[in-house]
């Protein structure tokens, strides 16, 4: 129990599209343990994104229960969910989603602003260290527009680590990158996993999935296969 950081219990997610109900997730149960490197795969429409939103506490299931670190999410208010996301889950998006007006450093610093005692000096040091860790020690004061795609994604990874979460949730992290940058990003993620972070990647790219230690394949909102490599 202590090892399980994410648990889905009989989770279904139903969207209303006009008259018809679409089941994006259909009675899915799974457990992800601390330190795992998981890729969630599947064709478009298989429920990958919905699963990411539910694991990331951005959305609650229509049926079933999500547990993060053993805490049931259905009991939490919207603000509690936001706090939980900020502390426990680092998001990495396909399109990086950095704030273009802020420098690399400020982007990494941003998540801490929404936590308590957000102005502590020691956080600045941590943010700098994180940027060094992803290999951008010399780009701290650059704006996103002055950085390559791969560099931007590394800033985004550093940002996701700002509050030192145990889970890293990456949605097609290499989807907008060339193969060289993709490799770099995957190396960064692998290294983080080695250091003990739980990494969950949503992807449709088999080469990316290959790097992970566990592959979950979704189809029509159901888990088709769940293999440890």
């Amino acid at each position: 129990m202590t090892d399980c950081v994410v648990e889905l219990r009989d989770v279904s997610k139903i969207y209303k599209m006009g008259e018809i109900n679409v089941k994006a997730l259909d009675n899915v149960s799974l457990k992800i343990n601390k330190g795992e490197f998981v890729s969630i795969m599947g064709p478009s429409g298989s429920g990958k994104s919905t699963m990411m939103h539910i694991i990331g506490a951005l959305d609650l299931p229509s049926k079933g229960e999500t547990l993060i670190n053993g805490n049931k999410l259905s009991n939490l208010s919207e603000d509690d969910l936001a706090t939980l996301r900020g502390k426990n889950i680092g998001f990495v998006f396909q399109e990086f989603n950095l704030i273009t007006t802020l420098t690399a450093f400020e982007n990494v610093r941003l998540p801490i602003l929404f936590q308590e005692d957000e102005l502590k000096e020691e956080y600045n040091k941590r943010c700098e260290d994180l940027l060094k860790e992803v290999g951008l020690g010399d780009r701290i004061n650059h704006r996103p527009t002055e950085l390559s795609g791969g560099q931007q994604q590394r800033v985004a990874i550093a940002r996701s680590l700002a509050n030192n979460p145990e889970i890293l949730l990456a949605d097609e992290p290499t989807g907008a990158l060339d193969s060289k940058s993709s490799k770099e990003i995957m190396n960064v993620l692998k290294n983080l996993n080695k250091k003990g972070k739980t990494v969950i990647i949503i992807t449709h790219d088999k080469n990316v999935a290959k790097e992970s230690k566990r592959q979950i394949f979704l189809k029509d909102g159901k888990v088709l296969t769940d293999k440890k490599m």
Partner: protein
Amino acid sequence: MINIFNFVLKNLKRRKLRSWLTIIGIIIGVFAIVSLMSLSQGLKTSINEQFGKMGANKITIESKYTTFGAETEIGLGQEDIRNLEKISDLEFVSGEVNANIKTEFNGEINFITSKGYNTENFERILEQDNFKLLKGNFFENNKSKQVIIGYDFYNEKDLFDKKININDKLEINNEKYTVIGILEDTGSSTTNTLMYFPIETLIDITESSENSVDSIIAIVKQGKDIEIVSKKIEQKLEIKRGEKDFTVSTPIDKAKDREEILNTVSIVVIGIAAISLLVGGIGIMNSMYTSVLERRKEIGVLKAIGAKRKDILKIFLLEAGLIGIVGGAIGTFLGFLVSILVKIISSYFEIDLFVSINIEIIILAIGFSFIIGLISGYLPANQASRQEAVDSLREE
């Protein structure tokens, strides 16, 4: 270093043009209000100051009927003055006659505004208006053919080409009147171009009856309540004259009247200016709604990385408030600048305007525009804070 304020500032800079256009909307409104407020407050100050100069213990009694200097029984006259002199609360009483006198000096003719008072207390009457004799003497008696002139006759050549001095003779109705005194500079061209006569002399010049002074001024003794004394005057005169065909007014009454008129004018004018501030507020709202729409994705990301509803609300409210503050500050500055400009321009036309620049107006204007920003920004900010993170992220 980054904090929420810094972040907000950068957001505004990102849409520089739109931010400034929105700010201009506020600037115009605040500018209008501040310039009008400082001018109208200045006007109030200068009027009050003039009243201060006029003396706070002067009661003015006027006939309800205009007499036009004609032979008439209904005007106020020397008998009324003698009756009022019996009131012990009064220091002294004097008649006042006003006339425009055709005056000749050195072959040149001008019409001069003139005032006649009882000569016994002439010096005290001048003191009431803060006027003093620069040189010369006061009148010998109520009938002497003497005149005291304002400073401009002595110092400037505007009225008569030749400057007038003590012992010069002015010719009025083919009779000579000796300049016996010259008043100090009062600072106002209106009072600097007055002539003063003994009351009966002026009545003679205007060929009106003894019983037709234009008004009676009564100076209340120190320490006496002017309102109570003015009631006494009213009762006494009514008994003596048999009817209340006159008005008794104190400086307080007059100040009240003028202030009421001024207040009404200010309220109307500032009300109109406030409409432009309202339009400015709608501008902020419009700009913020657009911003919320544009930044749906950003809001989603912020929520994903841990921003709570109140964090998003704070960010957007601060942006709107900041637009208000910047607009308010610039508008206040411009408002004062323009009122000072108006003062300078009007001083060229010899109009003495006070411009009141006080900290209250500054705090009020900037604080008010901040609040307008917050109010206008509330609905958009609220919409932003209620946005579901998952909805905005799905729009990729």
